């Protein structure tokens, strides 16, 4: 290799746009891996004109990968930069294994941060603001919901890809080494937990309607529970469900169990009819 092969704006743009199809082929064994490889194709084809080299690169990327979608461009940027480095490095000076290990090192922490931010925070804030407006028939609620989700995710994608390609690996190694990454992950977890705690009373309800007449005085179960602590049953239910999910009980099974429970408790008069 005499002339250095450089990725141009054209290939990089193609890779960026293909990042939107990161879940285009979600398989149980490789998760986003196949789609990640598909996104890289424009860069790999440019860097490795020799089919043997290209095949080697494809084998390298035909592996499991999974993270929060909005962070996929950041990872792709880093992979592009590293593949470019490898393609131009003299024989034996650059271990291609490091390309895969950086990918794998990235996906876990990024998924932890990303799920807290995008599923746990932006979406929740957008829903908190947008859904009540929409439920009252105001189109503005829908517009706000879209903006509050699309804006942070689009910015993360565009700047993440740039940052990843231009030295993201050094940046990441630095914040990982000095402990900033761990701090950010933990701070994101804390944010997520506060939000999730607040979601319990907002979205879970246990509609007890049991009333008993006992010699003149009436016993209203909901009032008794309320005087112990409001939202007590939703909290207990959420914690119990979490316990079973943690134990590996499938979500589908839990869905059917709760449906059955709802019908059963309605039939025995614990829950209201109508």
């Amino acid at each position: 290799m005499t002339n250095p092969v450089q990725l141009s704006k054209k290939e990089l743009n193609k890779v960026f746009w293909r990042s939107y199809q990161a879940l285009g082929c979600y398989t149980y064994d490789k998760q986003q891996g196949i789609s990640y490889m598909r996104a890289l194709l424009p860069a790999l084809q440019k860097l490795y004109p020799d089919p043997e080299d290209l095949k080697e690169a494809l084998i390298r990327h035909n592996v499991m990968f999974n993270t929060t979608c909005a962070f996929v461009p950041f990872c792709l940027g880093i992979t592009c930069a590293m593949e470019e480095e490898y393609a131009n490095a003299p024989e034996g000076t650059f271990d291609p294994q490091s390309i895969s290990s950086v990918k794998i090192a990235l996906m876990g922490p990024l998924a932890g941060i990303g799920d807290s931010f995008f599923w746990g925070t932006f979406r929740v804030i957008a829903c908190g603001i947008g859904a009540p407006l929409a439920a009252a028939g105001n189109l503005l609620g829908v517009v706000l919901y879209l903006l509050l989700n699309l804006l942070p995710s689009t910015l993360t994608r565009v700047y993440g890809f740039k940052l990843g390609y231009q030295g993201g690996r050094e940046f990441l190694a630095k914040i990982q080494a000095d402990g900033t990454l761990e701090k950010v992950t933990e701070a994101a977890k804390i944010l997520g937990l506060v939000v999730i705690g607040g979601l319990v009373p907002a979205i879970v309800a246990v509609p007890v309607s049991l009333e008993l007449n006992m010699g003149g005085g009436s016993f209203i179960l909901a009032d008794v529970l309320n005087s112990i602590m409001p939202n007590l049953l939703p909290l207990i239910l959420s914690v119990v469900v979490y316990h079973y999910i943690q134990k590996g009980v499938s979500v589908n099974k839990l869905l059917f169990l709760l449906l059955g429970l709802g019908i059963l408790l309605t039939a025995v008069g614990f829950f209201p009819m109508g």
Partner: protein
Amino acid sequence: MILQAILVGLVAGYGRIEQSWFGQQMIARPIWLCTLVGLLLGDLKQGVIIGGTLELIWAGVVQIGAAPTEVVSGSVLASALVITSGLTVEEGVALAIPVALLASVMNTFISSVNSAVLSSLTNKAVENCDTKMIWWTGIGGGIIYFIVYFVVIALGFMAGSVAIQAVIDSIPGVVRYGLTNASKLLPAIGIGILLKFTFDWKYAGFFALGFLLPTYLGMGTMGVALTGLVCAYIYYQFKPRAEEDD
């Protein structure tokens, strides 16, 4: 009628592949899909109302990782039927829940088939250095999902406006009200999934804080999220970095 069914099917197909082809930007949700249905069927306002209502009910149902819970088919079918066949919003919501359950079973099935077929096709393509094939397998999951959702929801809609009302009426009251009551319990599953990803006894106090704010102070979701940001900020500022620890 056929045209309406096609439009409803298209929204359902789009809703399912939003995550596959359009980056999973958290918008394949009732609030946006029902609005689209309303727009296409000529009653934007009803679409917005049922979308907002379902969004509030399903706020905690999120698709993290391979969790099969889904909100697309229920949202699309329910809003379409509310708009075209005069169901009330409440009846539409009650209908959306069993539909969503059936769809999540269907989803699990398609995902398994997808996984097996696309994985082996890709392995063969890598072996032959067939980049065209990888282009296709890399988005292939979306194609299959789109077709299945388009067909199933369009057919459901066509059967629905005639038959679903009768089906709902024929359901015994205990089951009908039981399902409505159960739908209030179901968001606990969403909470459980989110906790699985974030819960740690070290930070349990923050979960408790989030729970207590609306319970005793009546704070809204927005206020809780902002308080969470403040907590995260304080933690970030005061926690020394690992290398500064002694």
